[in-house]
């Protein structure tokens, strides 16, 4: 820092390109400039080190080194520890794992759940990867996936039928969340476009729909789905509870997506619409090729935020008695064999949601970076 630059002087017009000056680097330099740069900074660093020192070792002991991984019930867990509750009883999660994943799905048919999950990964990767051979077919597959999944899970057409009341645990959570997420995006885009339409009737319907759905708590909508909807249906007809819940969750998320996308549409200058019009592009072509690609790009953070929200909100179905991972886990806590193992359960469930949501968040950052091809808009 203190040494004066000793660059030679050059005659005007002859200055060569020089490499940039080197930053003070090295681990020691980093520590000095980031952790010990001022007395306050030193104090904060010491405090942090002390906190880590007191919290980390017992946590590691409880979570890993002192934890029990195999046991038939909590009594055996306690017996295997130095003192009861000295470590986590992960045997509880391991012993309940199949139940947590598949719910009450009949055992001989569980390969169908596994296949659905494998196809889900394939649809995600194939649908989202940019340079994958046969991109068009992957997209068709991804679009058809929800219907393939419904057939695989519920059966019919040659497969053993399985009632929707057999779905539970992570399977149910994923069904609710993925359905809500994948159908709310197209519906939300349609609502956003409708809200900006020149046709007053269409605009009115979209505004009322969006504002109504946003103004009512999801739990209320779920109660409506579980009780009231039967009044509106023709007498004698049965309409599956899961189906009703899926519709409500989708409608709820789509209202939020619609507002996020509308924000993106408003972020575009009117010049983009005018240029598309002036070139003779029809409304649909202009939106598909010019307007939506830009508006959706602006909306990515908001859309992913909504997706993460609906993923976590899917746990609200436990209020109307559906056994998603949270509902099922809580029911399992009442099992006399595993009574009182709430910390293990909630750590497991938190981890499941955290990994899923963090993956979505990372993907969206990645996508934003990729779409930022050195152009300002």
């Amino acid at each position, binding site marked *: 820092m203190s040494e004066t630059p000793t660059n030679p002087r050059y005659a005007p017009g002859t200055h060569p390109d020089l490499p940039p000056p080197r930053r003070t680097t090295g681990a020691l330099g980093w520590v000095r400039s980031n952790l010990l740069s001022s007395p306050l900074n030193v104090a904060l660093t010491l405090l942090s080190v002390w906190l880590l020192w007191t919290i980390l070792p017992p946590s590691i002991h409880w979570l890993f080194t002192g934890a029990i991984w195999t046991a038939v019930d909590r009594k055996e867990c306690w017996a295997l520890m130095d003192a009861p509750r000295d470590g986590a009883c992960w045997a509880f999660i391991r012993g309940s794992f199949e139940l947590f994943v598949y719910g009450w799905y009949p055992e001989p048919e569980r390969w169908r759940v596994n296949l659905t999950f494998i196809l889900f990964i394939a649809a995600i990767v194939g649908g989202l990867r940019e340079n994958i051979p046969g991109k068009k077919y992957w997209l068709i597959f991804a679009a058809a996936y929800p219907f393939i999944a419904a057939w695989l899970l519920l059966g019919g057409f040659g497969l053993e039928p399985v009632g929707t009341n057999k779905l539970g645990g992570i399977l149910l959570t994923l069904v609710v969340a993925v359905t809500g997420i994948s159908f709310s995006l197209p519906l939300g885009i349609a609502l956003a476009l409708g809200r900006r339409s020149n046709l007053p009737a269409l605009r009115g319907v979209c505004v009322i729909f969006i504002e109504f759905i946003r103004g009512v708590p999801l739990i209320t909508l779920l109660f409506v789905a579980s009780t009231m909807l039967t009044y509106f249906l023709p007498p004698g007809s049965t309409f599956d509870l899961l189906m009703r819940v899926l519709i409500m969750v989708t409608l709820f998320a789509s209202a939020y997506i619609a507002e996020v996308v509308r924000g993106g549409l408003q972020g575009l200058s009117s010049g983009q619409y005018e*240029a598309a019009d*002036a*070139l003779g592009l029809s409304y649909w072509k202009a939106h598909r090729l010019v307007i939506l690609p*830009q508006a959706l790009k602006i909306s990515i953070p908001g859309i992913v935020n909504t997706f993460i929200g609906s993923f976590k909100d899917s746990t609200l179905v436990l209020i109307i008695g559906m056994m998603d991972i949270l509902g099922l886990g809580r029911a399992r806590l009442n099992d006399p064999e595993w009574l009182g193992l709430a910390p293990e359960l909630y750590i497991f469930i938190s981890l499941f949601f955290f990994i899923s949501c963090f993956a979505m968040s990372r993907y969206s950052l990645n996508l934003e970076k990729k779409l930022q091809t050195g152009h*300002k808009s």
Partner: protein
Amino acid sequence: MNQETSVSPIGSRLNESDSKIISIKGMHKWFGDFHVLKDINLEVAKSERIVICGPSGSGKSTLIRCINRLEEHQQGSIIVDGTELTQDLKNIEIIRSEVGMVFQQFNLFPHLSVLDNVTLAPIWVRKLPRAEAEEQAMQYLERVKIPEQASKYPGQLSGGQQQRVAIARSLCMNPRIMLFDEPTSALDPEMIKEVLDVMIELAESGMTMLVVTHEMGFATAVADRVIFMDEGEIIEEKPPKDFFENPEHDRTKLFLSQILHH
């Protein structure tokens, strides 16, 4: 009225209405209660080059935006190449695909490369095969002298380059008429010339052009007529030499004295 067969060269006009590619009669437009355009009458012949000037807010942009229906007029008629502009969406699409427009702010599509910007409408509106559209696009990019920028994004180009891409984008639709709304006003002085050069070359090739601009050098060099607008009316309309040397109306004189003395 709409005899498409008149291929007569400029100058040898057999029948007045035959060679009129744009015909605006008794046209009025309002923005709410605000009367922006008042009784506009304007006939443009094929290959004619018209420069429109006038003070800010006089309705120049609105006038040329009415010609491709970016703005809707409320009274009178606008007939472009034999097709009248009405509510009929089909007619609007026909006219838009024959009329190119270049904007002050370029309005390139920032998410598409230069080549994709230029081939978008030929592929999706004209239904050209991609290979053919790209070949044609490269010809036009060469004509505006930036073929080497084809794979870049608009945000990576200078203003002058962007405006030339915008011109190429319009030309790729093989328009019969080109509208320019202050194409050089957003450019730094050293880039104005490169855009004007392209426009002059286009004028020499026989394109029908309506240009809103205050570049009086351009008007003198290429315009057949200069139209002066003020407060929504066409005040004066003359060949450039006459227009600059013998303006009739006081408002024209005032306007000319302002733009020539800064």
